[in-house]
């Protein structure tokens, strides 16, 4: 009997959750997502507030040659790089750049991909065929070499990199959104809307978009990690963010030459990238589980 009372109490509480309320509830239970979340908070705090606390210039080069490649010390907790610049400062400022690029690139790719996916899925027919053919083609080309080519063409800089990543990153989201739209089209409310005479744009943005939001959010979160890695790779090869501006990627560029002697140069930016991407991935995965209608628990 005691069982049944508690059951009733519990079930009364359950009724009142909205969709997003339920999502957050599930999210809190997901330990990996929470770890990712806290890691991310720490990283962002460090990167945003860090430069305000550690007021050393990341670009200032010392006069003589004595100060290059120093080991960690009180004055330079992470040491100095091959130009004598303080690594910690570059690390903090570089973090801002890398994360910024990652965020912007991911959001833009998803946005662009979603628009294409919505259009292709909604209009169907020739438009769909052409757009999907384009997606197929872009997906078949090995992205990285082309990424470099485009990067070299557009010149090197933050916005250029974002553009490059977007040009090669929208396809996955387009496909995803398109398949959601196709299944939505089958639903009855689509026919009803069309019958009433709602304009296509309105159907696309007001009716379909909210349903697409869940996978989009997941995709964006996971995409930020990927974009950060792309930025790092491009900068590593010398095509991305240019010195004296720092990014975690270009910090590794010259570190390669010093792996036999100064391994720390490789260590710091890499770990930072890894942990940041890891936390975005944890969160993205948690979000995906939380928003999945078919929970297996």
């Amino acid at each position, binding site marked *: 009997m005691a069982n049944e009372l508690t059951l009733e109490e519990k079930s009364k509480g359950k009724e009142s959750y909205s969709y997003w309320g339920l999502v957050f509830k599930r999210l809190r239970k997901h330990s*990996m997502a929470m770890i990712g979340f806290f890691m991310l908070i720490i990283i962002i705090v460090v990167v945003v507030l860090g430069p305000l606390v550690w007021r050393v210039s990341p670009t200032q080069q010392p006069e003589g040659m004595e100060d290059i490649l120093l080991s960690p010390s009180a004055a330079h907790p992470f040491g100095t790089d091959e130009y004598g610049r303080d690594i910690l400062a570059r690390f903090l400022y570089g973090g801002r750049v890398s994360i910024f690029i990652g965020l912007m690139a991911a959001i833009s790719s998803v946005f662009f991909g979603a628009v294409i996916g919505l259009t292709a899925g909604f209009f169907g027919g020739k438009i769909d065929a052409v757009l999907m*053919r384009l997606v197929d083609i872009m*997906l*078949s*080309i*090995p992205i*990285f070499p082309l990424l470099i*080519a485009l990067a070299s063409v557009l010149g090197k800089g933050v916005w250029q990199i974002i553009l490059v990543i977007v040009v090669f990153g929208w396809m996955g989201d387009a496909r995803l959104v398109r398949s959601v739209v196709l299944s939505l089209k089958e639903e009855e409310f689509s026919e009803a809307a069309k019958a009433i005479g709602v304009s296509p744009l309105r159907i696309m943005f007001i009716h379909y978009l909210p349903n697409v939001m869940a996978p989009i959010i997941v995709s964006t979160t996971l995409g930020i990690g990927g974009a950060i890695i792309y930025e*790092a790779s491009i900068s590593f090869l010398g095509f991305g963010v240019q010195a004296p501006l720092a990014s975690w990627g270009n910090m590794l560029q010259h570190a390669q030459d010093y792996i036999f002697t100064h391994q720390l140069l490789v260590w710091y930016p890499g770990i930072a*990238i890894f942990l940041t991407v890891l936390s975005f991935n944890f969160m993205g995965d948690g979000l995906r589980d939380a928003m999945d209608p078919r929970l297996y628990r």
Partner: protein
Amino acid sequence: MRTYLTRRTLQLIPVIIGAMLIAFLILSLVSDPFAAMIENPKIKLADIARLKHQWGFDLPIYLRFFKWFGSVVVGNWGPSLLYPGYSAREVIFRALPITLQVMGLSFIFSILLSIPLGVISAVKQYSKTDYGLTFFSFFGMSMPTFWFGLMMMIVFSVWLKRPSGVPLLPPGSIQTPGIESAAFLPRVLDRVQYLIMPVIVLSLFSIGGWVRYMRSFMLEVLHQDYLRTARAKGLKERTVIYKHAFRNALIPIITLIALSFPGIVSGAALTEYVFNIPGMGHLVLSAELKNDFPTAMIALTLSTVLVVIANLLADIVYSIVDPRIRYS
């Protein structure tokens, strides 16, 4: 089945052409490829003029594409600018087998590792093994490949040394100088030691993602009704999982693997660069860095063809594995 395959093959042709077009357009935007050529004393001006005509630089861009396309298809690939004195074809075909080795080994390694791990992770859902494997797969998915490569080099080439003082694993390149004259077995063993690190590095990212996906495919299958029927027949649990369940999970797994090809080819380029392996990816990147437009184009095209062929093979395997495709 035959019609299905013919149809798929025909669909691939426009994809290849489209890919070539896009690569062409992008690389055409790169500054004048002839600038470097003119400065190079080894290339005669007459040759440059001839090339200009052959590649259609005297024509507007759309016509240029067709002319270039024509010469590529015929096999007329011109000289290599990266390695003057050699034709583009020689350079590319020297790089191709190396890339195939790296990618092939990585591919096999990734599949052999991720399928069992993904299946185990699903079967033992929520166990410690599952959490461990899940953590490992996130690890793999979040690691920038080139950095992992550098780290591995630090560990295996800088910190760990053989008794003779030489690095445990070579930090780059593809073979020990002078090994070409040795017998088959020593050559193979020699090649293996150079390939260990690049293959592991290239595979890590794939394995991370694949284990995760295979786990979820397997989980989805594990909830199907036909497994209940199989158990009701009195089958051993092991048979239920490895015969009935796994066979069905195989279908999305193949799709996943096929979709990952472009990523592997792309990742190979960066891995080759980090480990200084003279393969196709390295070739493309070097060619781009040094404005060898024609070689880069052709190498890119070949890479795309590789991907496309691999996709076709995947389709064949797919139709074998899923009878619903075969008989519909």
